[in-house]
């Protein structure tokens, strides 16, 4: 829609700015809070302008604050979160793209049933099946392990569904041309389907990485060993203060830092995502 009316331009911008403020204000408050010292924050009113304790707070959270709460170092937890998010992202994409490939391109008994079973799991939130899942993981002795942290979260009905929908839009003739050109099933997958799915993979990477990064409930259930603590759990632990005073300045500094990886992923993948959109064509 191309409109050229000053009032409308004003109105759309007003809405845009309003929306931006609503979304960005809490983040701004968190950032401001992370630059003041604790007494300032404990007055109950968070100042609206950044303070002078930026370097002090951030170096503290990165070095010794977490130890006071019986937690491993901040960077250790960040690494845990990163490993978990990356394993989940890669695992989800690999598994779902392969199951979608099987469902769309192979004829086997109960193919449609298999798809629907996968699809139905979309309708159950993780929390509903969390007890049986925990039981299985515990019985398999996967508590306090990387396997326990990642494997139960690694199958993705959503991603399978998205890849299936995408594969179904790829013209049959391309598959047939590849068959005539001597490409077997796996060669077709590697040489043609995978490059064509690049855009979808990029978009899913962003979504799934953030999904893995912000996991809180599941890591809390399966890890008791602080060595496996993720950043989200660590931050939560710091909010439950032992002596009644919560060090909000450090918590906020930690939170702001925890936001950086998802932001970087969005910025980095978005570039690839847009390039993919403009370059591929079916």
């Amino acid at each position, binding site marked *: 829609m191309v409109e050229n009316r000053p009032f409308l331009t004003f109105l759309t911008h007003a809405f845009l700015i309003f929306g931006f403020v609503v979304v960005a204000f809490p983040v701004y408050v968190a950032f401001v809070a992370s630059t003041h010292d604790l007494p300032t924050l404990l007055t109950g009113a968070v100042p609206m302008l950044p303070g002078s304790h930026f370097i002090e707070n951030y170096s503290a959270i990165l070095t010794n604050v977490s130890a006071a709460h019986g937690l491993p170092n901040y960077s250790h937890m960040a690494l845990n979160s990163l490993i978990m998010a990356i394993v989940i992202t890669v695992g989800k994409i690999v598994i779902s793209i392969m199951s979608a490939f099987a469902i769309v391109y192979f004829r086997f008994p109960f193919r449609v049933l298999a798809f629907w079973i996968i699809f139905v799991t979309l309708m159950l939130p993780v929390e509903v099946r969390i007890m049986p899942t925990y039981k299985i993981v515990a019985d398999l002795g996967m508590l306090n392990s990387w396997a326990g942290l990642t494997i139960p979260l690694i199958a993705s009905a959503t991603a399978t569904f998205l890849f299936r929908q995408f594969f179904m839009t790829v*013209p049959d*003739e*391309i598959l*047939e*041309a*590849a*068959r*005539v*050109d*001597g*490409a077997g099933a796996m*060669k077709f997958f590697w*040489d*043609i389907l995978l*490059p*064509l799915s*690049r855009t979808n993979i990029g978009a899913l990477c962003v979504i799934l990485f953030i999904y893995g990064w912000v996991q809180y409930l599941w890591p809390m259930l399966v890890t008791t060993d602080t060595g496996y603590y993720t950043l989200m759990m660590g931050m939560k632990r710091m909010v439950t203060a032992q002596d009644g005073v919560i060090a909000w300045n450090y918590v906020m500094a930690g939170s702001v830092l925890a936001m950086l990886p998802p932001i970087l992923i969005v910025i980095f993948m978005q570039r690839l995502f847009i390039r993919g959109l403009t*370059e*591929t*064509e*079916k």
Partner: protein
Amino acid sequence: MASIDVEKVGKIYTGGVRAVTDINLEIKDGEFIVLVGPSGCGKSTLLRMLAGLETISEGQVKIGSRVVNRVEPADRDIAMVFQNYALYPHMTVRQNLEYGLKNRKTPKAEIDARVTEAARMLEITQYLDRKPRALSGGQRQRVAMGRAIVRKPSVFLFDEPLSNLDAKLRVSMRGEIKRLQRRLGTTSIYVTHDQLEAMTLADRLVVLNGGQIEQVGSPLDVYHTPASTFVASFIGSPAMNLVKAECQGDRLAIGPAMISLNGYAPASGTVTVGIRAEDLRVVSGEEGMPFVVEYVEELGSQRLVHGLVGDQALTIALSGESEISGTMRIAVDPARLHFFSADDGKRIVSANEAARAAAASSPAPVA
């Protein structure tokens, strides 16, 4: 280079739908065969069975001396050109051309030589590093053909390759396909629903209807002696006039009009008579049939006059300058009439035709 033997081939889809029935066809090495018919006649299914993209339910297909019923498409030594080109969108033109050869582990130098050769032949050398997206429809079609040519297969299969192009490009690409096929001498099978394309390209036409072969023959054979009313109405533009008529001895009654047959009557009783629009001519005086003109289509070189004889519609092709009046009298040389059975639409072979066919050593068109 290979001949193809199609023996009693049929296709039944799961669910019992029969798409193709009892196809017998011997295709000689280097021949250009066109499968033509209306949509749903089974021509694409037949081609896809030859390609190996559909399983063959009945009968057998031989390419060269090898039965290929259970051979993968890649191992049949064929190359196929698809209607929507089916180029790999993420590969450059060069990669598209190379892909089939790489999969066959062809040496790099050989691949380069073949790609260069094909690109030169198709005049796509300057586009080799572009993606298909950056090409026009005609250029994409050339790349699709290039992909077939570089493989040096023994058979080319074309599945309506020109139907996505505009009319002008279609004519020029048609010529190019013919020229290429002549030059390479590769056995080719070409599917189209466009009778003009079929006529101009084919060494032999295979007219299909309802999953069965209606007629096989050279384009002129099929044009001049159609085996059935279906072929008569499908091949040729404008379509052959088909009218109900009554043979009464040596005379033919078309509606109110009577034509003398001068001994060309092959049957008696009710028949369907086929008359090519260009075989009808305007006569003066009282002879011929009365023809009431309804409307005229101007083609420049020709005028197609549509009208009625009695209550039966007829079309006459007249030269561009001829005069047209509201009511005319038209006549036709009895030797140029085609007679078809009124029951099943099959051609009724006249005595002269049978004699001519017997004299020629080539197999007679089936009646």
